[in-house]
Structure formats: C-alpha cells, structure tokens
C-alpha cells in the first residue's frame, strides 16, 4: 500500500515539475516577445496555456484521489494540499503569460512604441522569480523560497517605476497631439499589471513550498 502511495507521490512530483517547467517557459517566452513581437511565438504561448489548464485539472484530480483514497497524514498531507494550492497559482501565471503574449502582438494603430526598459526589466525579474519559485519547489529549498518571497518587493517597485514612466510618456504624447499611441501605453500598463500579479503568484508558490517543507504558512503553523 505504502509502495503504491510512494509511487503516486513520485508521479505527482513529476507532474508538478512538468507544469512548473511549462509556466516558467511561458512567462519567459512572453517577455521575449517584447523584442521580437513574433506572432507565431505568441500563438505557441497561447496554445500552451490550454495544455497548462489541462495539467492543472489532471494534478487536481490526482491530489483529490490521493486525499480520499490514501488519507495521508503529516508531511504527505502537507505536500498534497500545498500542491493543490500551488497549481492554482501556476495556472494563473500561465493565463497571464498568455494574456501578455496576446496584448504584445495585438495589431496597433500608428507607430509601434518601444517598451520602456523598466517594463522589460520587470518581465525579466518576474520570469526569474517564477523560475526560482519552481526551483525552490523542486529542490525543497526553504532559503530559496524565502528569497523569492523577499524579491516580490523588487517587482512591486518596478511596477511603480513603470507607471511613472508611462505617465511621463503619456504627457509627452499629449503635448505632441498623438492620441493613437495612447492605446499602446494603456496596453503596457496592463502588461505591467499582469507581471505584477504573476510575481504575486510566484510569491504564493514559494510560500506554499515553505508550508510543504516546514508546515509553516506565512510564518504561522497551519494545522
């Protein structure tokens, strides 16, 4: 019985890693679109989101089956319940990557505006956070998980910077009487918001990693 359970836990772990791999790839590729604006690459990300959704449902089903049929306790229970929480965050990151890809490659009126360097940095920082959060899950590294939680502030600060930059750009546009480009600036704001949310989800994943390993969620014992 235990052997079968161990096998199932191993499979769950492999599926979690596969899903983590997908989402970190998705958010990284979405960031690369800022330079390339490659429509075909964007379509791959959007299609990949369906696969991520499918993975979420599969892992969810597996977790529920394990909870019902094996009635796990202690660390096994923590692992499975945190996996259930983590896949929701992972799925959201997948959604947001898909949204970012869609917005970046949307046809625009007028001249293409370059993306502000702060937004590009934000995309790199967020992709990095997601990668490290998944790393923390794979290696069960609490230190790394805490570092990910801490680096959420970096992305939040970048979000403020992007907003300031966009306001500046908007004022410039206003003075130059070029209203068509304002739409692109709003889209950039949306992209920045999506990244900010993705970073929050990465933080959540890291927090659940800590819970899975230590039983503490946000510094408190969850019973």
């Amino acid at each position, binding site marked *: 019985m235990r052997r079968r359970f161990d096998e199932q836990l*191993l499979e769950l*772990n*492999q599926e979690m*890693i*596969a899903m*983590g*791999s*997908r989402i970190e*790839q998705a958010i990284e590729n979405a960031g690369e679109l800022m330079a390339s604006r490659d429509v075909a690459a964007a379509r791959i990300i959007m299609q990949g989101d369906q696969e991520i959704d499918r993975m979420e449902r599969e892992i969810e089903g597996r977790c529920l089956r394990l909870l019902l049929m094996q009635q796990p306790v202690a660390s096994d229970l923590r692992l499975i319940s945190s996996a259930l929480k983590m896949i929701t965050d992972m799925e959201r990151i997948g959604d947001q990557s898909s949204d970012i890809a869609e917005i970046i490659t949307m046809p625009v009126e007028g001249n293409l505006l370059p993306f502000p360097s702060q937004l590009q940095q934000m995309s790199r920082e967020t992709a990095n956070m997601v990668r490290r959060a*998944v790393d923390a899950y*794979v*290696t069960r590294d609490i230190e790394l998980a805490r570092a990910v939680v801490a680096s959420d502030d970096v992305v939040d600060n970048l979000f403020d910077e992007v907003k300031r930059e966009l306001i500046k750009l908007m004022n410039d546009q206003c003075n130059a009487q070029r209203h068509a480009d304002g739409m692109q600036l709003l889209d950039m704001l949306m992209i920045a918001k999506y990244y900010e949310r993705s970073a929050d989800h990465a933080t959540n994943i890291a927090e659940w990693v800590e819970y899975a390993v230590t039983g503490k969620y946000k510094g408190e014992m969850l019973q």
Partner: protein
Amino acid sequence: MRKRIFISFIALIMVFGTLASLLLAGIVSTVIPNQVMKRLREEASLVIARMESLGAENAFGRLISTSRITHIAPDGTVLFDSTGFEDLDNHAQREEVEEALKTGNGSAVRYSSTLRANLIYVSTRLEDGTVLRLAASESASREMMGSMLPWQIFGTLALLILCLPLAARITSLLVKPILEMDLDKPDDSLVYEELIPLARRIDEQAKQNRRQLETLDERRQELDVLLGGMQEGFLAMDEDQRILLINNSACQMLGVDSRWALGKTVPEVNRRQEMLTLLAELREKGCATGMLGRGGKTYMLSASRVPHGRGAVLLISDQTEKVEGESTRKRFAANVSHELRTPPTTICGYAEMMDKGMVMPQDIPAISGVILKEGRRMLSLVEDILRLSRLDEGFPGGAHVRVGLFDVARAACESLLPAAKDKGISLACEGEEAFVLGDRTLLDELSSNLIDNAIKYNQAGGSVKVIVSAQNRGAVLTVSDNGFGIEPQHQSQIFERFYRTDKSRSKATGGTGLGLSIVKHAAEYHSAIITLKSTPGQGTTIRVAFPEPGEEGA
C-alpha cells in the same frame, strides 16, 4: 547459544527432578499396600487365636479393630461382618475368598461394592473350612503420597533455584572460548576442536570477500576514471528516472553538483521542455534524441533504454561549435550565392542591351568599364572563396619555412602604393626584420589584405603606417590608420565572412567582404593572435602577433 545451553541445563535438571519424585511415588505405592497386608495378616492370626479360645461368636462380639472383619462360610454365605451390614450376598466369587478356599491364603486390592471404596483384602481358610477375611482401606498409601507431594514440589523448586546460578556459570564457561575466539587468527585462539572446520571456512570466506571487494573497487575506479575522462556527459537512470550514475561532464553541462544530483530524478535536475519531451519519448519508444540549449551552449541529448533492463542511459554531447559552424556555413552559402549572382547579372544585362543594339557607340567605353569592373570583382570573389575554402581545409600544401615578415610587409606596401597614391593616402612601412615560420603566400595575403583595408576605409589625406617588430623573439605586424574606424558593435563581427559594417560604402570601395576573414584564417594557420583597437572617426590599429618560430619545432 548461551540461552540454549542454559535452557537445556534447566530442562535436564527438571527432568531428573521429576523422575526422582515419580520413582519415590512408585516405591511408596508398592511398599505401603504390602505393609498393610502384612499388618492385616498379623491381625488375622490374632483374630484366629481369639476365635480358637473364645469361639467364633464371642470372638467377634468384643473385637475392636479398625479393619473390616468378615467371616465367610465355605459356601460363600457371610456369617459375620464387622461393618454391621446384614444379608450380604454370596462372597464365594470374591477374588481373595476364592483364592483362600483353594490355597488357604488369599489377598487382593479391589473395589468393594459394599463399602464403595478401594480396599486391601487378606483372607485365610480356617480349619473348619470357613474363611476369615480382613480388609483395610487403601487410602493410607494415598494419604502418605499426599503428604509427600508438597515436599516433592518444594524439593524440585529448591533444586531449580540452586541450579540456576550453577547453570548460568557453566553456560558462560562453555561459551567464553567461543566469544573470545579471534576470527582473524582462528587457529591460535580455538579451544574447541569441533569449531576448527567452521573457523577455517569463515577465514576462507573472509579472504574471498576481501578479494571480491578489491576487484569490485578496482572496477569501480576504472569506471570512474573512464566516465570522468569522458568529454561527453553520461547519466544512468532507473525506471523512475532516478539518477544512478552521473559523470563530471554531465554535471557541468547540466549545472548541478554530482552529490546532490545522485538519487534525484532527471526532471528535478533539468526540467527544460526539451528534456521532458525527450524523457516522454524515451518512455514511449525506448530511445530518443534531442537538443538542449543551456548557458549559451547547445547540447545533443541521446537516450536509450538499457537492453534487458528498465533503466536508461543518457549521453550529452556539446554541439555548440557544430551548430554555430553550421549556421555560419548556412549564412556563408546564402551570402556567396547572393554575391556571386550580382556581377553576372550586371554583365548579362549590358551584354543583352548590346546584343539588341540598344547601346549608343559613345556609351560603350562606360559600359565596358562597368563590365570589366564587375568581371574583376567576380574574379577576385571566386579567388577569395577558393582561398578561404583551402584555408578551411587547413591549407594543405602550405609551407613551414622561415619567412622575413618585414620583407613581406614591404613588398605588400610597394604593390599597394599606387592605390594609396590614387586616394591621396600616405603609406609608410617601417620596423626591423623579424622571422616567422610559415607560408609566404599566406603571409603576403594577410599583410596585403590588412593594408588594403587600411587604405580603402580611409579618407583622402589620411595615413597608413605598417610596423614590423620583433618582440619576445616573436614577430609582430601592426597596421594602423587614421581612417573611419569601426563602431564597437561591429568590432566582434568584422572577421566574419561577408560581414560589412556598411553595405553602401563597401560596395563603392570594391571589396569582396572576405578580406578580413582570410586574414583571420591566415593568422590562425600561423597560430598568431589578432588584436583590434579602433575608435570611430579616429582610426583603427590591427596588431598580429606571431609566436616565436622555435615553438613550432622548426
């Protein structure tokens, strides 16, 4: 063993104790009835004496005895019984009566239906033919046995308690030599000769084990050396994709620590989509190949299941150079086809116009000039390509002789002086003679191309300086100009084939785009090192440092 010996001792003692008590009980149970019988007979003789003196009736009347006394007629009728029972049945069939009637005396131990108890009977035939029978209860012997029983139990227990320490002591005495046996030198420390074969066997097996461990260790070391020395990454995994074996190269390529990676699953170590796809394919088909990009390098993965096993091995080889070389070659082929097509297109176009009679006679000098220029361009292009392809093959037939570098540089300067004069550029060649071990034609190509470039990418009134110097016994060729200079972002790429910093300007100067590529290859052929220093708008200095001739083993 100690436990077993101890228990055996105790069991033995208990068995003996029990046997002794049983024996005692047996003795008691046979001796007591005999004693009773003896007493009954004595009593019988007393009764008989009394009967003779007092007569039967009187004798019984005042008799006081614990025994049951019965007087039986020869026909079995009971004449008297001390228990007082009347009308007893005929006693002729009773064992002891029958015996007494026959032989004069009889005895028996049996159940009495009258008294409903086990009785010991003794009977004697009197002179008048009647039988006198005395009986006593057998319970006397049982009582005695009963009183003996507590003593017996007590005795056995006492025996047990006394024997416990003794048994323990003997046991430890017996076991001690075995415990103290030195298994490394069994012959010296043995007390029991029965153990010698066992000890020998143990000794042999220990030796055999040691030998096998040594062989195993050797094999392991061989394998470690083999795998460690491999340039390719090697990784062995079990059916759950857990890593059983990973060599240093694989660790470096995947960027993990080998101690950490052992026992982890492959997706935990690397979860790139390429790797996961490969693993899925491996599981499905039993073998798979794929490419993996990591840290700016490209690796080829090839995995296959182990025959007759459920594990698999994964080989990782660095394909960065090959992939990069392929993409350079592809770019080269695309460029070559483009570059080669342009001149013939121009030539054919003008030739067609002439063929159709569409060219005015006064235009012919200009057109033929263009055709000539394009033809020359194509020629130099083909020459350059051929040269490069030879250099790609490692320049077979190239010489390794002492060549004076200053000589070569001066000759190149002389041949390019007219071109420099045309553009109004001053060209100076100075320095000392320095020798290089190599091929004269190649060195000539190298210096002409560098000087030619310095002239081409320069404005009127500029200057080009060629300096040859001997440094650290090696030779150094420096070509510096005060021309356009090269933008920093182009500097790393100018040695690539057909790479041009600015298309429009280069076409006008008439270069093939292969010159610096030839310089690079020629320098590589001589193991020379090229350094480039350039500031846009101020000029460029290219320094080619040749190694000391002796190093190549002249």
